[in-house]
């Protein structure tokens, strides 16, 4: 209902504007709004995470319009619902670009949805801002990755466990799909490069939404009972985390004995969980709601006022959209147009302050520089930062710890202009990304 009113209102505004400007302007300026596509699932499994991002985008667009819009025009959000259905993501992206002619798309959550949209945005030369931490090994001319690459989340987290908590044995537990598999491949290579023996690494995959963790937790307990300090690096996705942590608690595995560091558990997910069994376990992100900066306080205030709920939490992908959107605005202003090629060129090198301190900069590989934070889960569902990188970490599209991607770099500036340039053979491989 609300959305209907909003659409009606914006239609009304558009007509009013058209009438007003139509008197003075030349017919060439018939396009009075800049359309921004929002491609997040509002139904199905992923709705739990993605609905929040849709609302975040609406908030950011509304705020920008209050400031006077962009290039003298109002921004108009175009919301579509790909319903957690990966092929539908591609269809909806096509609709946004071809029919709605949006200037940029903000969207996707799972890697598989991004991979499904990728060929469409490349074919139709659109812009996609992807706000979620992901497995890397990709860099497209048309995609800007505002979430963390593995070197901005997984690797620092492992460093923290290894150096600060003196962890010697590792359990890499993940959900069975592309992000955990690639991340664990990188982590395994990294751990081995640090002298960890294969016998001290246990890898385990479970299906989406797995709920019976009894034997896996018992295995982890057994694996961790050899006297060497053990930790679990968890790429377990979404819902499956709750029964996992519950089972850990019930089998008496506490964070001080066997800490779990998670890459997919944020404030939003914790708000739907009884947090008691999780207290003390860790998570690695680039943003925590509890970080005490002025920008963050203002962002939280703006969000809670927009969503009309003083208890709603903020999380890492929301910050990614916040940075991504503002960078896009800056780049469009710099380019003076919303033309994809011009904006993509202008985006490289654009800077915008992170909510957690420091200034994010869009690098040549279309990734951001961000601080990495490790936090302990508190009883109120917030994180208490226990460790953080000294400065900002620059996002690296191709991992240096996988032998096949070590020589590959992404650089979208001339003369290389390639998403997977091999520094050894000096060739850009034919792949599109």
């Amino acid at each position, binding site marked *: 209902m609300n959305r209907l009113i909003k659409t009606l209102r914006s239609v009304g505004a558009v007509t009013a504007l058209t009438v007003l400007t139509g008197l003075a302007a030349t017919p060439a300026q018939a396009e009075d709004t800049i359309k921004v596509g929002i491609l997040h699932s*509002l*139904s199905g*499994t992923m*709705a*739990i995470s993605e*609905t929040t991002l849709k609302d975040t985008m609406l908030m950011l667009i509304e705020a920008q319009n209050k400031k006077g819009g962009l290039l003298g025009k109002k921004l108009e959000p175009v919301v579509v619902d790909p319903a957690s259905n990966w092929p539908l993501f591609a269809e909806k992206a096509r609709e946004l670009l071809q029919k709605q002619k949006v200037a940029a798309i903000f969207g996707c959550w799972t890697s598989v949805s991004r991979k499904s949209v990728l060929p469409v945005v490349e074919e139709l030369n659109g812009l996609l801002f992807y706000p979620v931490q992901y497995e890397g090994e990709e860099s497209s001319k048309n995609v800007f990755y505002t979430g963390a690459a593995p070197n901005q989340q997984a690797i620092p987290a492992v460093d923290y466990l290894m150096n600060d*908590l003196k962890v010697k044995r590792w359990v890499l537990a993940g959900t*069975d799909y592309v992000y955990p598999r690639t991340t664990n491949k990188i982590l395994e290579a990294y751990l081995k490069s640090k002298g960890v023996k294969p016998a001290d690494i246990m890898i*385990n*995959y*479970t*299906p989406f*939404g*797995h*709920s*019976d963790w*009894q*034997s*896996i937790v*018992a*295995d982890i307990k057994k694996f961790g*009972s*050899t*006297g060497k300090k053990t930790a679990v690096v968890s790429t377990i996705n979404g*819902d499956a985390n*709750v*029964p996992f942590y*519950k*089972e850990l*608690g*019930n*089998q*008496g595995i*506490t*964070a*001080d004995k066997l*800490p779990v560091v998670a890459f997919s558990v944020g404030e*939003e997910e914790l*708000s*739907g*969980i*009884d947090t*008691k*069994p999780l*207290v*003390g376990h860790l998570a690695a992100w680039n943003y925590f709601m509890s970080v005490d900066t002025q920008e963050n306080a203002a962002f939280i205030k703006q969000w809670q006022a927009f969503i009309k709920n003083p208890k709603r939490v903020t999380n890492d992908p929301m910050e990614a959209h916040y940075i991504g959107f503002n960078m896009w605005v800056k780049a469009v202003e710099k380019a003076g147009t919303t033309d994809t090629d011009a904006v993509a060129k202008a985006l490289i090198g654009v800077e915008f302050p992170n909510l957690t301190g420091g200034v994010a900069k869009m690098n040549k590989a279309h990734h951001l520089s961000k601080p990495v934070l490790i936090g*302990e889960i*508190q*009883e109120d569902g917030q994180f*208490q930062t*226990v460790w953080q990188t000294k400065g900002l970490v620059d996002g690296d599209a191709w991992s240096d710890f996988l032998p096949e991607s070590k020589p590959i770099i992404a650089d979208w500036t001339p003369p290389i202009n390639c998403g997977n340039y091999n520094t050894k053979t000096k060739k850009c491989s034919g792949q599109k990304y």
Partner: protein
Amino acid sequence: MLKLIETPPKPTRRETLFLLLVSCLWAAALLFIDPALARAEADALAEAANQLKTAPMAELEQAIGRLAKINDPRVPGLFKALRDGRLFYVKASGRMVLADPKDDGYALADALSGEALGETGRFDVKKIPVNNALRNVLGVAIAQLELNAPDARQRLRAVESIGQNLNADSAALLRRQAEQETDAAVREAIAVALALADLAGTDKSSRLKAIQTLEGSLNQEARNRLANLQEKTDEGGFVEPDSDIRNHAAAALKQIEIKLELNHLGETLFFGLSLGAVLVLSAIGLAITFGVMGVINMAHGELMMLGAYTTYVVQTLMPGHIDGSLFVAVPAAFVIAGLVGIAIERGIIRFLYGRPLETLLATFGLSLFLQQTVRSIFSPLNRSVSTPSWMSGSLEINSALSLTLNRFYITLFSLLVFLALLAILKRTRLGLEVRAVSQNRAMAKAMGIRTDWVDAMTFGLGSGIAGVAGVALSQLTNVGPNLGQAYIVDSFMVVVFGGVGNLWGTLVGGLALGVADKILEPYAGTVLAKILMLVFIILFIQKRPRGLFPQKGRAAEA
């Protein structure tokens, strides 16, 4: 500030003399009278406790160390409160308080005296933060203080905690405790801990004796230390040079391994049975609607979801009584899911009897409808359902085998529901009518049974059971709009495998599938185990299309 360092007015000589006398008396009193001494200690306690709130994270450990040295019965309580995140201080007065969340704020009590201080807002108090490192320090400190607790179980836990990181000091502490300890279990734990300490020593005879003590112990540390004795260095030589000790340790280790293996078997069996119990619980409602009535109800999972959401609503309505909430939620979920079930039967399914394909599509559409309704009412986010305290933790049988309480109770509950359902079908008039209608509708009708009414009641019963299963699931998994989808396939699988129309088949089928799954899992991994199970069932159905316990006689032909 200036006022504080202002010197007090100089006392006159007489006053000085008097003061001297008084202070002498005080000193004497301090020496001879206990209460005064205690008061001084209490002040020291208050002061040391106050340091907790001002010390930065890095210095908290020292502050805790200082507190641990003070001999006061209140210290363990203070430590536990700190470990559990209940220790706060009032921002305005700086007073240390214990805070428990109540409504939107906290209920406060003085940290030292325990005196209740009423309630306060969320922002008036500040928590004293702890991290994992500190929790560790606190755990050891609490253990040392609890070594002379009156409760034997507390002492046992304390001994185990100390045993995990033993040094000379704590070993001496344990030796002293061993002399006065009366409880057998605690004595044994102390013996193991001390044996571990001896094993690390250099005296050969005491080391051999230590190995003897450790023989058959299920203590994790004991196993590790014995295993370490067998290890080789990188050069190929043994870490432990004494072959006598090595051989004895190997023998002891072997015994331990056999014992552990047996316990592991027991554990796997329990895991399997509990998984099976969940399968039975979610399938048993379906065994009624699908098995007895022959309705393919794709919305069965959503009825479970309704039951889980009922638990959430019940807990929201009675926030102070989480422990009792499930006892209210079970009947509430039965009634709500049952009513929805009756509505579904009256509204949709009765028009579609005998047309399985349409029923399937209609109920599938209904399941989407129910999901989206819940999403609109409760938001797409998962809801947090708390676990009652009596359901969290585990039942420790020995140090290698413990059964998680939530699974344990759910297994019992599942059997209870099964027996209740069996009793309804076999012993009540409704059950008789249900069986009559399912066996021969026309004949039942001719005998004067209102088949319409029986259909509605049967479907309501099956749906109500699904709701009850939802309450149990809310304790195991997420309460969200998609809860039902995860269980619908498994439920059908169990019913088909067990034999359509046979409750015993559902029970045996569910439990068998659970145990088989858990036996396969360690070898094949979760994903492959699931695939293997499916392949097995497909092959089984090829061979025996009517499942484990097929219905016999004329009823089967209908």
